[in-house]
Structures are given as structure tokens and as C-alpha cells.
């Protein structure tokens, strides 16, 4: 699987390259600035991009901006954004086009290589993976969004795990229920959030978006 990597700290970049290679990824480009990243994404068209939010030359959100710009030009380009901090605002912007294939994680998640690599795979496959910390913030604030109020606690828990990017099987395992029960819950969630039946994966992204209070149009 071909990866483009953007990280300005040499040590982290080196470590990430080594880790990804150890898990059989092919790092086709490892860049350290925003403009280089955009260039690399547009020419290499990788299977997935792993991007640091803060990059030179401005050391602000260059990485995020480059990733968003690349996705405007290559719709659905899978991008996993890593950041020292998680911001709901950035999560919303990343998910705003509703096409999925987005991950947004704290940098510390690389502490657990197995899980991190699994997330990279999930994003590459078109899934959505939000950092548990983003979700924790959202959960603290639920109750102010009308459609989410209609969900039962159980359904909300399923939605949270869905937002973390887990499959029905993984959710079932985590909640110690059967996969069929998870399916029932997800169907209820889609119904309550007013998401008409279409391709399953797409609806999962929309549900997560509703969770993030983005009004997808």
C-alpha cells in the first residue's frame, strides 16, 4: 500500500517511516512542508496520506490546508491527519465533504503501533476514524443537538464507536453484544437521524457528521 507522509520533525518522520515499512507499507514520499505535501499528493496519488496538521512554512495549519486542498482536487483521497491537539473545528472541516476516508488522530496514538496501523488501513479503505478524545468532547456536549437527543444511550454508544471508525463486528465485540444487535442499533440510528437507506458506508459517515453537528447538504 502506497503512503505519502508529511511530518516536519525529523525524529518523528523517521520513526513513522520505519513503523509503516515494518507493517508493509510503501512510503512513496516523506515531506516536511505544506507546499511539498500538496505537490506529493497530487503527483503520487497515494492509497493513503498520513499528515501532520502543523507544518512549515507558517507552522500553523498548513498540513490540514494542504490535505483539504488535495481532497478538493482528488475527491475521496484517503487522509489520516495527526495532530498534537484535537479540535472539533478541524474534525468538522475534514469531514465536511461527506465522502469519508478521513482520520483525525492525536499524535500519541502511534504509541500503539498495531492499533495505529489498523486505523491507517481503515481510512485507506474509505472508513472514518475520529480520535476518542474528539468523541469525548462531543459526548460531553451532546444534549444541545436535537436529533441526537432522540437516541437511546445504547445507540449513542454505538454511534461513538462508529465515529471512531469501527466496523459492526468490532463494535459488537467491544459492547459484548451480537453483530445482529449492532445492525439493529445502526438501523435505528439512521432512522432517527433521518438518513434514508443508501450505500451503507456512506450513511455511516453522514451519521458521524450529524454527530459532529455538520449539516450535510
Amino acid at each position, binding site marked *: 500500500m502506497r503512503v505519502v507522509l508529511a511530518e516536519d520533525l525529523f525524529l518523528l518522520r523517521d520513526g513513522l517511516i520505519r513503523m509503516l515499512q515494518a507493517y508493509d507499507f510503501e512510503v512513496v514520499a516523506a515531506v516536511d512542508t505544506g507546499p511539498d505535501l500538496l505537490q506529493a499528493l497530487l503527483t503520487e496519488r497515494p492509497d493513503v496520506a498520513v499528515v501532520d496538521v*502543523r507544518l512549515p512554512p507558517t507552522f500553523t495549519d498548513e498540513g490540514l490546508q494542504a490535505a483539504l486542498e488535495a481532497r478538493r482536487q482528488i475527491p475521496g483521497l484517503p487522509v489520516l491527519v495527526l495532530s498534537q491537539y484535537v479540535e472539533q473545528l478541524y474534525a468538522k472541516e475534514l469531514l465536511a465533504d461527506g465522502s469519508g476516508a478521513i482520520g483525525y488522530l492525536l499524535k500519541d496514538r502511534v*504509541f500503539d503501533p498495531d492499533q495505529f496501523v489498523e486505523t491507517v488501513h481503515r481510512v485507506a479503505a474509505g472508513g472514518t476514524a475520529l480520535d476518542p478524545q474528539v468523541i469525548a468532547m462531543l459526548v460531553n*456536549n451532546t444534549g444541545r443537538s436535537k436529533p441526537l437527543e432522540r437516541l437511546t444511550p445504547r445507540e449513542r454508544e454505538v454511534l461513538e464507536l462508529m465515529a471512531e471508525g469501527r466496523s459492526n463486528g468490532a463494535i459488537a465485540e467491544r459492547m459484548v453484544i451480537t453483530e445482529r444487535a449492532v445492525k439493529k442499533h445502526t438501523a435505528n440510528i439512521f432512522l432517527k437521524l433521518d438518513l434514508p437507506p443508501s450505500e451503507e458506508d456512506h450513511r455511516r459517515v453522514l451519521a458521524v457528521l450529524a454527530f459532529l453537528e455538520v449539516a450535510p447538504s
Partner: protein
Amino acid sequence: MTSSITTGVVNNVQNTDTTTGRTGRTGRDPLRALGNAVRSTLRGPVLAALAVPQLLLLTAATVAACLLGLGVGALLVPPTVLAIRGLAGLRRRLAARWSGVEIRDPYQPLPDAEPGFRGAWKRCQAILSDQASWRDLLWLLVDPVVGFTVAIIPLSVVAYGVLGLLLPQLWQPIADHGGNTWYLWIHVTDSGAAGTAALFGVPVMLAGLAIAPGALRAHTALAKSLLGPTARAEALAAERKVAHLTETRRDALTTQAAELRRIERDLHDGAQARLVAMGMNLGVAERLVERDPEAAKQLLAETRQASASALNELRDLVRGIHPPVLADRGLADAVRALCMDSPLNVTVSADLPGRPEAPVESALYFAVSEALTNAAKHSGASHVDVQLWYENGTLKAQVTDDGTGGADPSRGTGLRGLERRLATFDGVLAVRSPLGGPTTLTMELPCELYSRRTSSS
């Protein structure tokens, strides 16, 4: 944005140039000089007419002052003095518009209006101890006499000239009714003398017009000497400014020192302690790895946990010092992000054409953050509206909640802190919070904006 500002400045410069050019020509161009003279002549009576409200207010002030002994005066003095200040303000504006002379307000800041007699008494005291109030009274006394005379002379002289011109037609009826038949030194008893008087009428009229600009200048000078700040008042104002700056600087330093101590303590008790513990754990794990691999594994897992916690703590610390979104995106998006994290339902509207200096931006960000925290903690509000905009060199933020109101800066330490935070940058906080709500906090910070990239939306 910058370009339009620059153009504005350039235009101003050009305007000033043309104005000076025009003023330069006034002396040479007889038509312009005549126009100026006529305008000045006609402005005289308007200034003279000020005598009427001046005398009324002088009377009112006298009455109010007499009643001070009875206590009722304390209620009457402030409105009277405010009315006097209003009239003086009008005179100052006229001086600026007609003579191009700027007369600055000499007044010391009044204490905020408090309800009840005590508040009125405090205001009254402040007014009475302000030297400018007494100088206003002096103006009320002097201007209706001296100012009135100076203002009315040019038009009177012009009118006398016109009378001379009309004498050939008028002398007969005047003489018939037993009126005064002298014009200057000419005794008008026949049409010949009337004709001579008419001849003198022209230079008299011109003389009236000629002295008019001078009289207007003199009147303005009189107003300036009485209504402008004295050298002592200016020195006092400068002293007050210095005192204010010293105080806010001390506040800023104290706050900063406290902040640094907090950061030091957080680092020392938190991340630093954890790193030491991790080091020890690793040392123990090293020894255990062969003897008791299970225990070593457990220790290593704990250590990884500790490292994650240390990271979390450092992250929170940095957020408290300078929030990353603020650095990345500027005030508008940082406040948006803040509002997403708030437990309340918050709407944000922002209209900022650029970004201010980082310290100003940060001060307003934390002020808004504190306002939101206050709203969430105390107001019982469910919806908050945050507005950010820039106007006349001032960055403004307004936070309105639909809570129960009753917020009082003189009691709440939160609001005091907020006030101090803004004062460091010469900013102000206005609180409007009637019981029953809604509460509106308005924060204003004078600053300049630079057009850096601000918001993505």
C-alpha cells in the same frame, strides 16, 4: 484591505494639501475674503444668541448651588452641570467648525451613575472638585458680557453703515419724529448732509465687514481660554494617564508572574514528576526483565500509560498558555472552536478584516473564554451569542446570554479579572445585566489589524 486603508490615507493628505492651498489663496482673492467676512459677520449674532441659554443656566446653577445646603441641591447640581457642559460642548464644536480651532474637553472622568442619593452626592462631589466645572461657570459669567459684545460689534457696525446709506431716504421722517439726527459727526438736517452721511456709510459698512473675522477669532480665543484645559489640568490628565498605566502595568506583571508560577508548579508536580517516575520504572523493568518478565511487562505498560498522561498534561498546559487554534487560525476561528467545546449552545458571528498583534488577540480570546465560562457557570443560560467585529480602530466582542442576569462586576471576581485583563491593553469592559437577564458583556480593545490569513470560512 491594506491597500484601501493606504488609499484613504493618501486621499487625506491630498485633501489637506488642497485645503492649505485654499487658505493660502483667501488673502489674495478679494471675493473669497468678502465671503469670509460676510460669513463671520453673520456668525456673530448666532454666538451672541448663546447668551440666552448661558444666562438661564447661570441662574439654574446658582439656584442649585444655593439648595446644596438643603441637600436637594445634590440632586439638582449634576443635571445642571451636565446641561452647562452640553452648551460648552456646542461652543467647542462651533469653534472647530467655524474657526478651525480645536478645544479639548477639560473634564475629569465622572464616576458611574449609581442609583439613590448617595450616588448623586458622589457625582456632585466629583463635579464640584473638578476645576473645569468652575471655569465653565466663569465662562457663563464672562461670555454673555464680553463674548456677546465682541460677537455683536461687526454686525452692528455693518448695520450702522447701511443706516448711513439709507439716510437720504430716512432722515426726514426721523427728524419729523424728533429722533436723533446725528450720523458720526455730521448733523443731518438737510438732504446735502444726508448725502454726505451716505458717502460715509460705505466705509463704515466695509469697516464692519473687515473687523468681523478678527472679532470671530477673538471670540474663539476667549472661548478657548475658558473652555479648554489649563496647563495644570493637562498636567493632571497626563499624571492620571501615567498612574493608570503604572497600575495596569503592575496588574499585568502580577498576573504574568502568577501565571508563570502556576506553569512552573504544574510542570513540577505533573509532567516532570511523571517523567521521573517513568525513568525509575524503566530502571526497575530493566532489572526485572530476565528474573520476572511478567512483572517487567506490567511495569512497561504502566510506563507507557504514564507517558501518555504526561503528554496530556503538557497539552493542557500549552492550551492554557496559548491555544493552538488561536495561533493557527486567529481569533474568529479560535472563538468558534471555543464555542464548540462549550456546554452551551453558542452562535458566533465574526467580521474581522485582519488579525491584531498576538498579545491583544490572546487577551480578547481569554476574555471571551472567561465570559463563556461565567455564562455556563452562573447565568443558567441555554443560548449564548458571540459577536466579534472591528470598528474605528477598536476590536470589539459582545457576549450575550439569555440567562437570569444580575451579574455585577463589583462583586464577581471573574468579571474583575476580565476587566483587568483588558485594562492592560487599554481595553474596557461594559456589563449590562439587569435582574432577570439578559446579560450582555461588551469588550473593547483599541488596536490595529494586520491582514494576515484569518479564517477559512
